């Protein structure tokens, strides 16, 4: 990415104020309400440094959790949770009989690393399931939980097809990535994307990110990584089951399940008519059976 012309206006290394529209300098995008923003995570660039996890915890004042070592590689966070809103998956790829191949194809073939996050779904099932309106769509087209409204009912937890949103046992409320809502309001790039040293996480306007991602897939195909594809971009795997598209989408090189992502996620609301029909049929059947039994008595 070329240096933004505004960069020459801010040569000082010590700042006494926030740079206005700082995201223009760091991500090449001006953040304005009414537009759609998201993340494009290119997993072929991730080196597993966890700078994104740390930046997220630092900015959002989230505590370190799962203190200790899981015993599963370097992945000590384990999973997304109420206190971990970014989680870097470490997936070791073994060859036949668990032995690594001597020859490897290009781009992260021995270890797959992928920084997972809330997908800020276009038709977000968590938001549809929330009975209090605590989950809402912001002016930046992202999905956020309002802590003062959440009553901790937990309906959003099973509604999310990606297992992202989680209830905290301590405050009883739902928590997940806010796509740094407060930073966006201040014109700042989200903390994870800003800290990523390899630009594996890219923040920007959704349409521009989707175009950039298509170009990156074409480039990887040219370079010999024919297995690269997008997950969550319109019309791609992940953007299934009426979810529309995912505002946080990924470039992957293995099947989605390898990264703990569902192959074809769906909206929980899609299953309401069939479940309701089955429930009503069962009630009607039981009522008929009861009528048949009791009407035969004297």
């Amino acid at each position, binding site marked *: 990415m070329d240096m933004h012309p505004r960069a020459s206006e801010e040569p000082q290394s010590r700042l006494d104020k926030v740079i206005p529209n700082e995201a223009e300098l760091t991500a090449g995008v001006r953040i304005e309400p009414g537009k759609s923003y998201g993340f494009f995570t290119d997993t072929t660039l991730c080196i597993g440094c966890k700078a994104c996890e740390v930046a997220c915890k630092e900015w959002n004042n989230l505590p370190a959790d*799962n203190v200790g070592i899981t015993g599963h590689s370097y992945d000590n966070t384990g999973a997304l949770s109420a206190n971990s809103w970014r989680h870097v998956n470490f997936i070791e790829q073994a060859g036949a009989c668990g032995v690594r191949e001597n020859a490897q194809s290009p781009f992260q073939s021995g270890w797959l690393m992928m920084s997972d996050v809330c997908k800020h779904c276009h038709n977000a099932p968590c938001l549809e399931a929330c009975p209090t309106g605590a989950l809402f769509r912001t002016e930046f087209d992202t999905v956020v939980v309002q802590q003062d409204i959440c009553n901790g009912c937990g309906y959003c937890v099973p509604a999310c097809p990606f297992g992202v949103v989680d209830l905290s046992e*301590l405050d009883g409320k739902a928590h997940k990535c806010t796509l740094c809502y407060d930073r966006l309001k201040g014109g700042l790039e989200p903390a994870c994307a800003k800290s990523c040293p390899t630009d594996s996480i890219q923040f920007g306007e959704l349409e521009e990110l989707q175009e950039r991602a298509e170009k990156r897939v074409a480039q990887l195909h040219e370079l010999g990584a024919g297995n690269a594809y997008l997950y969550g971009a319109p019309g791609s795997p992940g953007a299934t089951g009426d979810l529309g598209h995912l505002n946080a989408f990924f470039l992957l090189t293995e099947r989605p399940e390898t990264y703990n992502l569902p192959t074809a996620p769906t909206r929980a609301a899609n299953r309401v008519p069939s479940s309701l029909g089955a429930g009503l049929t069962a009630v009607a059947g039981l009522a008929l059976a009861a009528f048949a039994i009791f009407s035969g008595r004297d």
Partner: protein
Amino acid sequence: MATLPALLPHPAGGRLVPERRPHATSRAAQVSFLRMQLSGPLAMKTMEGVVTIVQEGRFQLTDDGGVSHLFLLSHDAALEPEQLPPLQHRQARVRVHYTAARNLIALVAHSLERADMPAA
């Protein structure tokens, strides 16, 4: 679950000591476990300091030694997350009653009171 053993008079001093039974948790062991809990993670402690960072129901308290501690508002706290930012803006001095959190590097705030205001 092990039941509490019966209390017997001590043969020498007449004090109560627990009867030793195989495979049963002795009262001494239970009392020492309770003591450990009360001085350990479950014990309510108090800290005073200035609220320096707030994010949702999480806040950082900087104590008089300049050390910052991360607190999470507990579900039993009478305070709501939206009441925290004014404390930060005023750099308010507060007293927090807290316990430790399990498997988290954070403290759980059960109640908060202004330490820079005379008690009502």
